[in-house]
């Protein structure tokens, strides 16, 4: 029987901070028990409601790191201290911590992995972006292993290039990843070849956020409740992973067509 009331509760913006081109962190007044990988539904009254992860937590406050991309994320980024948004959640299943983990982030997927890195300060964190201007959290995680597509910062290349040697050396127990789904698919395939577990946080269009509507379906999984973090066993069974996603109407399209918000590319 439904006992929990799934309704937004308003939270005030306390401060905001620019992280990179088009990327801004908003600190909101809220205490929350949150597992890295989970998400909240963020409501802007009379506009829309969308899922965001919590990129950092402190007593009495939580952070959203938002890429300015469409109407909603722009309105969200532009909220001033003192203004409020509605939050419901946290929802979903976060990362399951195991020994000898490596974190692999792509673009603003780092927002999802950031609180996991906070919890696992000694775990290596590989972070790839298209170019130097899209890097974020450089001060927060000075030990990040960086790469850029254009070589403007860190190693030139993809996060998989930094992950591969570690897998080959057999020093990896589990890979936690978040980023564009094509990147996560590449990370997963690599892990499969090395027999290493991979946990990936998927992104799908969401409505309820608590497992009722299956608008967020990927294979037979609801990304909002069964995920958003899935392990290798689950990813293996998901034909859609890395290939297809569904628009608001439920129409299935290629990932390219879906628009890959995590790539932080318009």
């Amino acid at each position, binding site marked *: 029987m*439904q006992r929990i009331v*799934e309704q*937004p509760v308003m939270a005030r913006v306390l401060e905001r901070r620019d992280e990179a081109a088009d990327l801004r962190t908003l600190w909101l007044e809220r205490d929350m028990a949150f597992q890295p990988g989970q998400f909240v539904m963020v*409501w802007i009254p009379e506009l*829309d409601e969308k899922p965001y992860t919590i990129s950092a937590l402190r007593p009495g406050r939580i952070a959203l790191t938002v890429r300015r991309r469409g109407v909603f994320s722009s309105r969200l980024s532009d909220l001033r201290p003192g203004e409020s948004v509605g939050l419901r959640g946290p929802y979903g299943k976060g990362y399951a911590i195991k020994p000898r983990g490596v974190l692999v982030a792509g673009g603003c997927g780092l927002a999802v992995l950031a609180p996991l890195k906070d919890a696992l300060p000694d775990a290596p964190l590989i972070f790839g972006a298209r170019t130097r201007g899209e890097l974020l959290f450089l001060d927060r995680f000075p030990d990040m292993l960086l790469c850029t597509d254009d070589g403007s910062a860190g190693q030139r290349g993809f996060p998989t290039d930094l992950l591969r040697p570690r897998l080959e050396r057999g020093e990896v127990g589990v890979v936690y990843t978040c980023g564009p789904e094509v990147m996560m698919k590449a990370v997963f395939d690599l892990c499969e070849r090395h027999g290493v577990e991979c946990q990936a946080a998927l992104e799908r269009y969401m409505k309820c956020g*608590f497992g009722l509507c*299956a608008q967020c*379906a990927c294979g037979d999984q*609801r990304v909002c409740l069964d995920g958003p973090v899935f392990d290798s066993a689950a990813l293996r069974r998901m034909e859609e992973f890395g290939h297809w996603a569904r628009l608001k*109407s439920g129409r299935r399209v290629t990932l390219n067509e879906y628009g890959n918000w995590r790539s932080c590319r318009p």
Partner: protein
Amino acid sequence: MADLTTTLCGIRMANPLVLASGVLGTTRAILTRAARAGAGAVTMKSISLEPRDGHPNPTILTFEAGVINAVGYSNPGVEEALAEFADLGDVPSPVIASVVGRNAEEFARVAERMARLPVAAIELPLSCPHTPGYGTLAGQSTPEATREITRAVRAVTAKPIFVKVSPNAQALGEIAAAAEQAGASAITAVNSMGPGMVINIEARRPVLAFKMGGVTGAALRPVALRCVYDIYRTVRIPVIGTGGVATGRHAIEMLMAGATAVGVGSAVAGGGVEVFARIAAEMAEWMDRNGVARVEELIGAAHR
């Protein structure tokens, strides 16, 4: 052990539980999962002629006594649905296609195509309270409209037709009778109630983007039960009793009110996909303890 199998319009079901439309039913893979999890039959999310984005979010909330939603029939449209559900071979339970339209002609066009799929029946919700152009808001919740739409769909398919009615309808008996006369094979009672509203007092705004939405779950249960009881006295075709069922006792109440099968939707919110197996187990346990061997013995028992 009690025998939970039941037959609804000739459709054999392993148990009387039907996944209600709009809950989980977006894809073939999810329908398969619900059926494997124990649903005796599964219903697709309603399909319209063209793709629909539905209302903006928030679309689905809960309150202290149930669920409130104004999804607004988001669906990929009939063309895409024909691809999505072309092969239903791995769904272990019968599949019901839910079809909506803005008028009788559109209902018939969509139903005719959906009926070519390997589905067991076509459900016609004439009763959504929060989607302009459809259901209650399009005047489909009257005996006249029910007759016209049912007839139009009956003309294009020989498959069982389930007409889904609104708990708000004042002429519920007449609507059910009109459906029966026009060729409906069963009545699904009921769709969501209201509409209702939820206001966030800090934001000073209704929370649902559409402002109002249909109320389902626990809040709806006694009203749904009364609708089933009334319809059972009015028509001879079977009833799929739907609204607030979350336990085996609730399902048995529906059967006793006159339902042949029992829809389950909102209970997935609290109980997960596992809710079907749990409800079925609770039903079997109660039947064993009370010396009831078969589901048929329960149907309409509260009327005798």
